[in-house]
């Protein structure tokens, strides 16, 4: 009953590894993972915070499959003559493993100042429950 995030540290998951490989070749580079994510948990579910400044919510695609939460989109850079370009731009994708069933219909996402908070409630079947003992 835990989300298996091990692949994020060890790259043990095939999908994640393929995506990491793609990033290594992308302008973002592996050291500049984009977007950065924080994952936290409480009894009701998982909270994934995605640090995604400059991408309007309409350009962010969140896909929840049976095993993954995939965040993808494109960060566009304006046309002009650049004197300095430190902000990464281009297509991005990150996949997070979900080993615990979430209630897919109740997933909500909210963007606040460039940080997207995705709340994934655990499916009722995996929530802790008190069982009363009949004496």
């Amino acid at each position, binding site marked *: 009953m835990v*989300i298996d*995030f091990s692949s*994020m540290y060890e790259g043990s998951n095939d999908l994640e590894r393929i995506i990491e490989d793609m990033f290594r070749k992308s302008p973002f580079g592996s050291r500049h*993972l984009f977007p*950065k*994510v*924080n*994952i*936290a*948990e*409480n*009894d009701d579910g*998982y*909270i994934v*915070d995605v*640090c*995604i*400044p*400059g*991408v*309007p*919510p309409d350009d962010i695609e969140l896909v929840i499959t049976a095993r993954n939460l995939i965040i993808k989109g494109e960060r566009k*850079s*304006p*046309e*002009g*003559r*650049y*004197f*300095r*370009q*430190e*902000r*990464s731009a281009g297509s991005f994708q990150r996949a997070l493993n979900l080993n615990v069933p979430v209630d897919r219909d109740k997933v909500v996402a909210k*963007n*606040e*100042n*460039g*940080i997207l908070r995705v709340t994934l409630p655990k499916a009722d079947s995996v929530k802790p429950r008190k069982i009363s003992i009949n004496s």
Partner: protein
Amino acid sequence: MNNKEARNVGSIPPTDILEMEDGFHIIMDMPGVSPDSVVIDIEESELNIQGASSYPEADAGLRKLHTEFGAARYQRSFTLSDFVDRDNVKAELTNGVLRLFLPKAEAMKPRRIPIS
């Protein structure tokens, strides 16, 4: 100031600086910073930008499983050239990105001198 605060001071936000037809644009990533917590000062030719992100360090009742970013205090300074019309600098903050517009000074715009 304790060590933790000292470390938080002056995170350098990734910045693009580009020239368009209308003038110069400075674009800075400041995720988690709300418009009312940004301070932009111009003193002589020095442009100074500061902003603190209000990203929650710790929500009550949340167990952290994986952390890649945290709250930051952003700070960056630029020196403005005479090409910039300092009185008409405009700023807007959307989706955690600060965008400064620095119009070209009227006196510095290219001009054709008619021959009399």
